[in-house]
Structures are given as C-alpha cells and as structure tokens.
C-alpha cells in the first residue's frame, strides 16, 4: 500500500521531468503515449476488473473527440467546457450501450461493441457536411502556443487525475463488486450484488475517461478523421497495449501503452512489420502469460516480500 504510493509518486516525478529531456517530436510521442495510457487504463478497468470485453473504447473516444470539436467549432463553446461535454457525451452513449446489452453475457457485448464502433465510424463518415468525414476535421487547439510542453502537462494531469479516480473506485466496495461480477456473475447476484447496476456503472465510468481522452486528443492533434481514430486495427493496438502491460492492473495498462507507443516510434524502420510484432506479442502473451508481460515481472519481485503462506502450509 505504502509502497504503491511511493512508486506512483516516483512515476509521476519521472513523468513531470520528461519535457526537460525530450525534444518537440519525442514530446509529441510522449503525449500520444499518455493519451493511449488513459484509454488503455479505462479499458483495463472495464475488461480487466469488471470482465466486460468491449471493443468500443476507441469509438467512445471518437465520440468525445467529435462532440468536443464540433461544439467548439459550431457553438463556440469555451474549450474546457467542450472538453467536459465531450467526455459526458461518451458517458451518455456508454450508458445507452450499457442499458442495451449489459444484460447479456459471453461474447454478445464484444459482438455488439464491434458493430457499434463501425456504426459510429460510418456515421461520422457519412455526415461529412458536419464532420468532414475522411477529409479530416480541423479542430482549434487547446493552447495558442506552438510548444508542446503545456499539452504534455495537461495530458499528464488528466491521466494522473483519472487514474486516481479509477483507483479510488476500484479500491472501494464498487471495485469489489466489479471483480465479483467478473468472477461469477450469478454468485454475485445471489450474494446481493445488483449486477446490472454495477456493470453499467463500470461501463459508464470507463466511457467517461475514454471520452475525456478523446476530447483532449482532438484539441491537441488538431485534425480528426473517423477512419484513423476508430478503425478496428486501432482498437487492436489498444488491446495489445493493455494486454502487454497486464490486463488486471492500471499501472500495467499505463506502462504497456507507454512501452508500445515508444517502441512503435523506434521501430519505424520496420514499417508495417512492427505491427506484426505487436500482434504476435499480443497472442503469445495471451496464450502463455495471461497477466501480461510487465505486471508479472513487477509482481514476481514484489511477491518476495509477502510472507510465505501457501495452501499446502496451511493444511499441514
């Protein structure tokens, strides 16, 4: 517990120091990495902790991005207000999806959310008079400065704040219910847990953060297209990040996102082959190390300090 706090503190310190070391383009990569870190941790909270495998995270991010961008462009809403509206729009859509499909089990949610992502992508493309579709919507930037440093700190702040909220939720009784539902939905129900309510709650919270990430991204990157933001392969990359990091840990998701995003930049020379590597890493990790690559390493070292008490000992 205390260790975690110190660890998180040091991680934040490293995060704060990044702009001192990095030049503009690498700072851009760092910002994008933090953006994915937020998306990945929101997905991890949903999939890893509450066991709901949604493929709509990128689409919800996209909804946040477009809502915020269009509000600023068409209604001249103040940037910060639009940012919140974007996140809220994703939340409302997340709530609707929740009400519509969360009563179902197994692969239904996955099937529905894949289809939903496509629906969002197609709609944003088709309504090009409003969204400019594939042509790219030019979005006003959050800050007037060319420097990336303020964006970096904003994104870092958003990420740290969001992680704190998610962490608090997961530490609370709600987190306990999320995990109980993930483990055994029926058992949780007969133990008095209102399964539908908490499933929807997890979905809604996760959607909010996905939307928040998306709206920030819109005002940072300045150009949005539905195809590149929410195509299915992009969702695949996001899942690869979470899985590589460790699907049951927020810190793992963040580490996975940062690692994959930076690797993707280093391995540019490999062109498309780097995505083959990530794809391969994804399936092999799923197959042989379900808890991801990064988190178990951390856990293995951390576990040394826990007093040895196994079932075998206990029964002796």
């Amino acid at each position: 517990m205390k260790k975690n706090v110190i660890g998180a503190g040091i991680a934040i310190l490293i995060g704060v120091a990044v702009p001192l070391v990095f030049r503009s383009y690498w700072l851009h990569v760092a910002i994008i990495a933090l953006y994915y870190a937020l998306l990945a941790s929101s997905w991890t909270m949903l999939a890893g902790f509450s066991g709901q495998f949604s493929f709509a995270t990128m689409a919800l991010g996209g909804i946040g991005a477009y809502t915020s961008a269009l509000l600023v462009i068409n209604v001249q809403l103040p940037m910060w207000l639009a940012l919140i509206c974007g996140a809220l729009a994703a939340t409302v859509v997340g709530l609707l999806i929740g009400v519509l499909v969360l009563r179902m089990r197994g692969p239904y949610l996955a099937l529905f959310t894949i289809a939903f992502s496509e629906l969002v992508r197609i709609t944003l493309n088709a309504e090009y008079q409003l969204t400019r579709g594939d042509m790219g919507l030019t979005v006003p930037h959050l800050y007037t400065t060319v420097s990336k440093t303020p964006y970096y700190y904003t994104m870092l702040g958003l990420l740290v704040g969001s992680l704190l909220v998610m962490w608090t939720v997961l530490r609370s009784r709600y987190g306990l219910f999320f995990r109980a539902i993930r483990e055994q939905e029926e058992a949780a129900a007969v133990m008095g847990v209102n399964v539908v309510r908490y499933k929807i709650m997890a979905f809604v919270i996760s959607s909010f953060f996905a939307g928040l990430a998306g709206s920030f991204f819109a005002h940072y990157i300045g150009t949005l297209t539905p195809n590149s933001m929410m195509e299915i392969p992009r969702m695949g990359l996001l899942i690869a990040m979470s899985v590589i990091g460790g699907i049951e840990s927020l810190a793992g998701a963040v580490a996975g996102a940062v690692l994959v995003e930076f690797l993707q930049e280093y391995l540019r020379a490999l062109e498309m082959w780097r995505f083959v590597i990530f794809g391969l890493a994804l399936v092999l990790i799923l197959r042989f190390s379900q808890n991801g690559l990064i988190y178990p390493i951390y856990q293995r070292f951390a576990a040394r300090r826990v007093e040895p008490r196994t079932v075998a000992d206990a029964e002796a």
Partner: protein
Amino acid sequence: MKTFLTFMGVIGLVVCIGGSLGWSQDQVILGGVAPLSAPGAAESGAEMKIAMEMAVSEIGQILGKPIKLQVEDTRGLPEEGTAAMNRLADAGAAGVVGEFHSAVANAEIEVANQRKLPLIIAEAWADVITAKHYPYVFRIAPANSLFYTKVSDWVKAIGAQNVVAIVENTDWGLGIDTVFKETLHDQKNIDGDPVQYTSIVAERTVTDFTPQLLRYKSMSPRPDLVMDIFTGTGEYLIVKQTGELGLAPNRETLVFAVGTSALYPEYWETVGKYGVFSITKTGYHPLLGVTPAIKKFNAEFEAKTGKTPTFAAMEAYDSIHVLAQAIEQAGSTASDAIVAALEKIKYDGVLGTIYFSADKKPDYMYHQWPGAKAVIIQYTAEGQKYTDAELLWPAALMP
C-alpha cells in the same frame, strides 16, 4: 519498492533513448511526405518517393553540403500527415515536398504554417490547399477548379445531357463534385440542351456500388457519362461494376475514371476488358510534347522501376528540384529566405517552366503554379499504357 523503481526505470530508459537521438548539422535535410502504405494510395506514394530520390541524387549538393532526403509515410491519414510534418520539422528539414491526398495535405499545411516550414505540394488538387493563402505553402499540381471547369467544357462539347457521378467523400472528390455542380448542372450543352448532373457520395471503404449503379441504369434517358470520382480500390470497382451491369462503356454511356489510379497497371489487372473505351485524365501525355527533360526522366525512371512514370512522379521530381534551387538562390536554409526565393523562382522542369503566382484571385491561385496542364484521354485497347491512350481534350491538341 525497489522493484517498482527498477521497473519504471527500465521504461524511462527506453523512452529516453529516443529523446536523445541526435542529428548532424553539416548536411541539408529535404523532407518528403507521401502515402507509402494503406489506406493511402501506396502505388502513387512509392512512385513519388523514387522520383524524389532520383532528383536528390542528380542534385548532389546544396550550398556545398550533402543532401539528406527523409521521406515520411503519411498512410493517407491526416493525423499521420501532421505527425510526419512535425517529425521533419524536428529533424531540421529545410523544406518539404510531396503529398498525394488532399485531406492529408490540408492537415500538413497547418503544420507548415505553424512551424514555418516551406512545403511544396506535389500532387493534391483540392482548391482549399492554396486558398488558405499560407505563406509557406506552394503547389505544383493543378487546383481542382483549374482543371475540372475544363472537363465541364468537354462534357458540354460532346453534347452530354445526363451526367451521373459516384463521389468519394474527400476534399478532392467533393471539390470536383462542387465544380461540376456549378459548371455543369443546368448549363446548356453544345446543342443548347440543359445538362443534368446527379451525384452520390460514398465512403472509401464501400465495395458494392451495384444498387446505385442499377439506379443510374434505370434512369431515363440513359446517362451519357458516368463519372467515377474515386481513387484506389473504389475507382477500380466502380469501373468494373459499371461494366458488369452493362451500364458503360458502350454506345450510349461512357465511363470517366477521374482518379489517378486509372493510370497504373493495376487498373487493367482489376477492371479487365471493362476498361476499354474508359476515359481518364492525366497531367502528362506524350502528345503534349516530349521534351528532352521528359525523355531523360522517363528513361531513367523506367530503367529503375520497369514502369512508366505518371505525372505524380514528375511533380514530385520537379518539386525537389524547385526546392533545391530555391535554397541555392536563398543562400541559406532559413525558411523565410526560401519562401522569398520560391516566390521569385523560375525553373525549367519536366512538366514545364515552374513558377508560382502571387494572385489572390481566384483564391486558389496564390502560390499556385498556373501552368499545370491536364488532359482527358481514352483507352482504346485492353492493357494499354496510358501514354498510348488517345487524347480527347483539349481538342486543339488532337493530331
């Protein structure tokens, strides 16, 4: 605790390596942007990249320093374009040339303007690119309005009355659609009859156009001309499905593949016999005159790739030369000096004598090369190279 530190440390280290990658100052970096992978038009991007490399190896040195050409893949996506431009700016590029997709170019000019990085757009036609009047943005490719008003003239000149179109929802596609709506619809053709122009907009990933083509087929009178305002796979599919449905090309109806993809060998591989008598456009054709510069470029390009270059390659090639000459004339790699030099430049390239207009009317004319040509051609045999296709317009050039 210690482990968490190590763990964060490793990640931090990985991240830091990237931050400290340096560059050497005793060279001139020229940037290139082109779609080299899907969903971009990778055929054109590859061609442009080769042409840029050819130009760089010819020039050898600028201001007595070696040239480093850095070509970035934009994948046909605006965000990737933005990222590519930022990477080039960070790498210290003196200027950037290239781009094929209007939507990507549209994102790139924002970065060019923000980071004061001279950008010569080689092959993106949307009016808006030069219409924003950004001081750092120049263009060699014709603007949509420059060329498609002439296509409208042709349509009227052949006496067409019913023109239908399937349009891709990009700046490029919709820009052409707008030009046709303004200069074709409800206008009188050569016989004095009003022209009717109908268009359907579609997204780039659509593969079955049959229902819409069937609707066109059931129109009365039958359409005279099907405009296929798509690039890439969609362009091929529309020509193919138009043929399969017996809609065009035939005596009553012609099909006009507007996108550049119709100039590549893949066109024939995919549309087969339905491509015979199909119409397309090109910025270069032997009947426009084969100068020694063109002959030399074509020969070198063919020797290198075994393929006939299209005008996208020529534009990319000329763009590098124009940029290099501007840097020489400016005497430095300072961006404002380069822009000033570009505004005064006269360069005899493969495509003609390139210079940039300072007019702001019509608005797309600013920093635009007004001399860009394009012609309408028609294939007459299956598998024909575009250089062997017949010239349809401008009529004056017909032999």
